[in-house]
């Protein structure tokens, strides 16, 4: 599978050799990005950073206050991939304070590396980061694309 970022139509998604990420809607229409697989290639930022920029642009355009970043099915993320989340927080910091939104990480209690990696990201991101740890599998939620009205240009 080649690396690709798709931003056309109503769905934002990215796929690497062993991972994928897609922005979906939660039960109340709030944005949620689900990461799946393993981010372990030599420079995943080549694909992840453009994806982050596209998602960031949509969140700013829609004045979102928060996005859930779902790690429940993310088996591992290497430090090179981790830098893309640092990049994301840097993008948020560059916004005027009134426009900043939060990253709400949903982590799996069964994947211990997530707890410590997100601790570090919390220290970096401060009030722009929230962590929710789930000990069970992802709650049932209908899969819907986000944004519902299509991506704004």
């Amino acid at each position, binding site marked *: 599978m080649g690396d690709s970022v798709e931003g056309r139509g109503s769905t934002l998604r990215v796929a690497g050799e*062993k991972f994928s990420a897609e922005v979906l809607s939660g039960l109340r229409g709030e944005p949620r990005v689900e990461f799946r697989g*393993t981010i*372990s*290639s*030599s*420079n995943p*930022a080549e694909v992840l*950073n453009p994806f982050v920029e596209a998602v960031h642009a949509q969140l700013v355009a829609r004045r979102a206050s928060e996005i859930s970043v779902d790690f429940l099915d993310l*088996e*591992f993320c*290497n*430090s*090179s991939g*981790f*830098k*893309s989340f*640092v*990049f994301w927080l*840097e993008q948020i910091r560059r916004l005027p304070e009134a426009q900043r939104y939060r990253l709400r990480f949903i982590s799996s209690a069964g*994947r*211990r*590396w997530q707890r*410590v*990696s997100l*601790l*570090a990201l*919390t*220290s*970096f*991101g*401060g*009030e722009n*980061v*929230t*962590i*929710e*740890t789930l000990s069970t599998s992802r709650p049932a939620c209908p899969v819907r694309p986000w944004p519902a009205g299509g991506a704004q240009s």
Partner: protein
Amino acid sequence: MTTERSVAELSDPQRRQAVGGEVIHLMLRMRPPWVFIDEIRRFTESFCACACPGANREAGMALAVHELMQNAITTSRGEDIDLVFEVEPRADRVSVSITNRCASEEFETLRDRIERMNREPDALAHYLEVMRETPSKDRGGLGLARVRFEAQLSLSAAWVGGRVTVRAEGRIRVPALHAIGGTHV
């Protein structure tokens, strides 16, 4: 391995008794393409869970192996990479060493990076500093700091005969990490 029986062959109570005192030594020599790095990490995690039962050390050691292997693959130019994993229960010590071919200039860069890291006694402070300084679009730069803070291991490097050995070692039983800032729900 230098134990008489494979740790993995023992039942849980037997395993705990066997690993309670002996030094556990595992050595792998490989020439892996990039695609196998996840398998190496998973094997390390599984092995460490057996070798350090109840210590919850396997995730950190697996992360350390992944990051150090990733660096080794980049500099080894396709030549052999040696991994040595050791657990000394009585000494409360665990370590992993990665040895690979490395040019002298690359070793000097690595050595300077480790020395700079070790000058900052606060592992989290250094990790955050590297996050701020490392260009997000460039490959690498966070791995060593990540191993030091997240895996709670001390790092060192030595260069002999054109090969570098990066060693990460620490205690088997470590306190939980705490964060500053943010919200946990």
